[in-house]
């Protein structure tokens, strides 16, 4: 990048520059501290799991009164240690590097000096940040004696004097490998992995497996009495497919115009536009993060348990949010060149959208719609779990009748086979269409 020249139009901004320079370092430090906090949690978990006879806390986040200060200060000191003595994971994540003023690796004296200085600085730093006359190029405890932290990008032309060690022999490499090993161990314990249960539980499971493979399809077209009325597998299957179809078609129609409101390159021209953009993005992200199963819980209460309308609405809302987000990302990634060209000819902004943006996004919109259709079909088969209607109604009906009817598991298997067949056929069709488009 070209170095800026002095001009009367470039305003100096000392505080903001300082803030910008310090931000990655702050986040890097916070990340390191969080990693040590995670290690502390793991240690506590292991202590109560393996040495519960000797430690007297019952669960890993219940500590004696003196415990919390110890944990907080302990992890803080460890973060300071990793930050002063090594190239820590946090610094790596924010592309920073600790070097001497000669831009080479810091000496041990510098590292010890830095660690001590950091401890001292913890007390006075908030005052210094605003009062120091130093510029953004020299911050906090940086000095010739303690080394400096600079963005890695600035080191690209520096020739190192030492051959770097392979990554698995660096402090950071060892640290990260140990961290991953610890995570695996912790995850194994927390999620209660017990492969032996697969063997010990087999005798019970084998009976169900036997019944499951006795697949009954006698109700494929014949009616079975559910909800006090007569329905068949094919009836519910049609319901499922149309639920998905309705949600996808209407969802696409709604998401199409809304996606433009959530695209930065369309809305980012005025403060009002920015406001709408931020609100739409927030809405899309918020609604998208709620599974349609959870939305269906609400609608099942609202419009009736087991009513496919509830399931369709739940799928529709999730579809609008998910497609709106995907679509708006497509709008944001269109080639800006043609838009520039059309705007340059004196077109209105909405004409630029119609002639420049839409032709570019149509293929990916179709592909995403078909992809969403696959998801909706799958979701519609199980949304009955919370009363959303569809083929799942029958699935869970038979599951609950186990014990009342001898062939109940066989009926469950029959429904599952029907679901697999329909999902497979729909996948195949949409896959072929997507191939044709792409």
């Amino acid at each position, binding site marked *: 990048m*070209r170095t800026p020249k002095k001009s009367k139009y*470039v305003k100096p901004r000392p505080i903001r520059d300082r803030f910008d320079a310090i931000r990655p370092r702050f986040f890097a430090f916070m990340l390191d501290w969080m990693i040590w906090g995670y290690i502390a949690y793991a240690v506590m978990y292991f202590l109560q799991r393996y040495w519960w006879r000797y430690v007297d806390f019952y669960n890993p986040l219940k500590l004696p009164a003196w415990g919390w200060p110890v944990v907080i200060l302990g992890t803080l000191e460890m973060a300071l240690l990793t930050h002063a003595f090594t190239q820590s994971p946090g610094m790596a994540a924010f592309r920073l590097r600790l070097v001497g003023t000669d831009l080479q690796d810091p000496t041990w004296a510098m590292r010890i000096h830095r660690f001590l200085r950091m401890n001292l600085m913890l007390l006075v730093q908030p005052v210094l940040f605003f009062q120091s006359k130093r510029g953004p190029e020299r911050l906090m405890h940086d000095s010739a004696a303690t080394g400096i932290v600079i963005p890695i990008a600035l080191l690209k032309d520096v020739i190192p004097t030492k051959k770097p060690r392979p990554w698995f022999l660096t402090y950071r490499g060892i640290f990260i490998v140990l961290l991953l090993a610890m995570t695996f161990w912790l995850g194994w314990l927390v999620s209660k992995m017990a492969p032996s249960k697969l063997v010990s539980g087999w005798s019970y499971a084998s009976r169900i497996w036997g019944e499951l493979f006795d697949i009954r399809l006698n109700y494929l077209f014949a009616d079975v009495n559910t909800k006090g009325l007569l329905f068949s597998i094919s009836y519910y299957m049609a319901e499922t497919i149309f639920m998905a179809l309705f949600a996808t078609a209407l969802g696409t129609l709604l998401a199409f115009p809304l996606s433009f409101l959530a695209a930065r390159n369309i809305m980012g021209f005025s403060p009002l536009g920015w406001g709408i953009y931020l609100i739409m993005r927030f809405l899309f992200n918020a609604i998208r993060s709620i599974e349609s199963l959870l939305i269906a819980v609400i609608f099942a209460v609202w419009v009736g348990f087991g009513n496919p309308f509830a399931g369709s609405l739940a799928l529709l809302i999730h579809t609008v949010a998910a497609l709106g987000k995907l679509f708006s990302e497509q709008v944001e990634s269109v080639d800006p060149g043609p838009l520039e060209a*059309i705007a*340059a*000819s*004196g*077109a209105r902004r*909405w004409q630029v959208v119609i002639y420049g943006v839409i032709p570019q996004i149509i293929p990916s919109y179709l592909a995403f719609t078909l992809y969403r259709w696959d998801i909706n079909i799958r979701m519609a088969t199980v949304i009955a779990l919370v009363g959303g209607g569809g083929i799942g109604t029958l699935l869970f009906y038979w599951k609950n009748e186990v014990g009342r009817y001898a062939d109940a598991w066989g009926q469950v298997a029959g429904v599952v086979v029907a679901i697999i067949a329909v999902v497979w056929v729909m996948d195949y069709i949409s896959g072929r269409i997507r191939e044709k488009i792409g």
Partner: protein
Amino acid sequence: MEDLIRIENLVKIYERGEVLALNDVSTTVQKGEFLVLLGLSGSGKSTLLRCINRLIEPTAGTIVFDGKDVTKASSRQLRHLRRRMAMIFQQFNLVKRSSVLTNVLSGRLGYVNPAASAIHKFAKQDIADAMACLERVGIPEQAYKRADELSGGQQQRVGIARALMQQPDLLMADEPVSALDPATAHSIMQYLEQMNQEDDVTVVTSLHFLSLARRYGARILALKDGEIVFEGSPAEIDKVKFKEIYGEDAEEVEVR
């Protein structure tokens, strides 16, 4: 001759004040002139062109186009000014998935009935004009093809046809031949020359090659680091002036 564009103390600063792209640029472009902008990559040529039709907002300074202040124009006034300033681009900037004819017609969007344009409806006269423009650049038979099916030279001709559709007073070309081979480059430059001489369109183009600038330019404006370092006729550029314009580059080549 009359001035078509008058630029006064134009300044553009990018990236929150970190890159100074144009620094106090002042110049005038006369009606019917063929002006060539020279300079290294990043010297501010594209920025200068895009400031004239405000695809890029200038940070400070004034641009007067045919007596009207572009920098102070409202969005409606700006659209009316942009209709008279056509632009062609290094990467052609066609809508790749639309037909050639639609691409050419989009040059007319500033004039047509907006409601009709929303459903891709154009007047018969506009379509006939578009075909005439395509005929003028020699590719009428490609009208119904998709734009990305054409070769680079043909795509740039579509770009010129789109510019012709505007019936502009000014044609701005941002390195129109950088993505083309030398033979095609000359044919494209000849279209620009033809527009300049036959239709009295003022042409402002940025170019990479000095040879092309010498061949086609009536006047040359050289930029370096956002400042004008040379202004005059092509014949005035000798070895010393060349060093002045491209000096940095020559030094860099020696170092590496």
